């Protein structure tokens, strides 16, 4: 599969989950395993541009497809993605565990709806749980990223 623009080729057991492939084979450990039950969204990555929970996708299902993790958002010069900048500026995190998933879910949300209302942001992120309950600043960050017109 292609991960963050780079081909990653490996033979893995049939039952390998995408999140383990990303962390253990591709060595990209920013994607967290949270609940492991399709609930919390910490493992959210983009599969062909759409947010998915990588604990509930087999690596084999992503074979030949494009996967983007939070490591793949910054451009080649290390400049952060507008959504990352907005999370930074608005302090859209507390402990940071949910953040990679929140950021990826936000990128997908803004790709589908570049100018969401606050309510649309809250329902658009309903698949992501913040165990610190830091939702207010997260929502503020998403709205800031959308306002900046750079949410793509």
């Amino acid at each position, binding site marked *: 599969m292609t991960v963050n623009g780079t081909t990653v080729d490996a033979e893995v*057991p*049939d*039952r*390998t*989950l995408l999140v*383990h492939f990303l962390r253990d084979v591709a060595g990209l450990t920013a994607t967290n395993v949270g609940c*492991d*039950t*399709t*609930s919390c*969204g910490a493992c*959210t990555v983009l*599969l062909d541009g*759409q*947010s*998915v*929970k990588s604990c*509930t*996708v*087999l690596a*084999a*299902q992503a074979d030949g497809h494009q996967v983007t993790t939070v490591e793949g958002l910054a451009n080649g010069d290390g400049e952060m993605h507008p959504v990352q900048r907005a999370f930074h500026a608005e302090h859209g995190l507390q402990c940071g565990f949910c953040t990679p998933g929140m950021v990826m*879910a936000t990128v*997908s*949300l803004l790709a589908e709806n570049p100018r969401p209302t606050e309510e649309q942001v809250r*329902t*658009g992120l*309903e*698949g*992501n749980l913040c165990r610190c309950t830091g939702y207010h600043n997260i929502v503020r960050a998403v709205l800031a990223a959308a306002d900046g017109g750079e949410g793509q």
Partner: protein
Amino acid sequence: MIPAPFTYQRAGSVDEALSLAAEGGDDAKFLAGGHSLLPLMKLRLAVPDVLVDIGRLSELSYVREDNGHIAVGALTTHHDVANSGLLGGELPLLAHAAGQVGDPQIRHRGTIGGSLVHSDPAGDLPAVILVLDATLVAQGPAGRREIPAGEFFEGLFETALEPGELLTEIRIPRPAQAGWSFQKFTKRAIDWAIVGAAVQGDQVALVHMGSTPLRATAVEQALAGGAAPADAAAHAAEGTSPPEDINADREYREHLARVLVARGLAEARSRA
């Protein structure tokens, strides 16, 4: 958590999927989006020996008009059902309900066919398909056959599909009455409905009030007899056998059914 070991096979066509499933025998399962099956496999509640991945059969992902019906390919994702212009215009109940399944990530992967063959009575779409009088099209070793939604759901995780049969299409007639509503009571977005109600005109189906989705027959009969919606809704729990679990006992589910059906009928009438 990872699933127990299995052999992964990828089908390039419907015919290949059927023959791979036949070779796999009783312990083969089709894998579509995997959002019902993989969680069960991680919990070892499902332990198939062979997974036949049909997720790349793009010919089973569509929404189109077909001979007076709306035909939805079994591999159409909840996201695509929810955002279909054709469904939004012709079957807004289905489009809306698909947009309420799980959360955005789940809707990007989960498919309408997968959700129906999973046959969880707490699932949203089985009740919607039931209230819309849909027909389910299956292909198997013995050929193609059509199964009315009312005969498809046989019990918890059980459907009328034979081993090796693949659900390929859902065919839905245009509703006779336009008003619709979908009511779902949950604690969190991603939870299964504690109780839900799907309303299309004077037809009503219930989520999580038995081991299968159910038509609220007593409500429909009361409406047909001229009862006011609020009075008809009082019959919503008749003939049901709701489960008891950590979220609700039987009495509470019966109460929720009456309340949700009353709300659903009122909303459907406001849209008629």
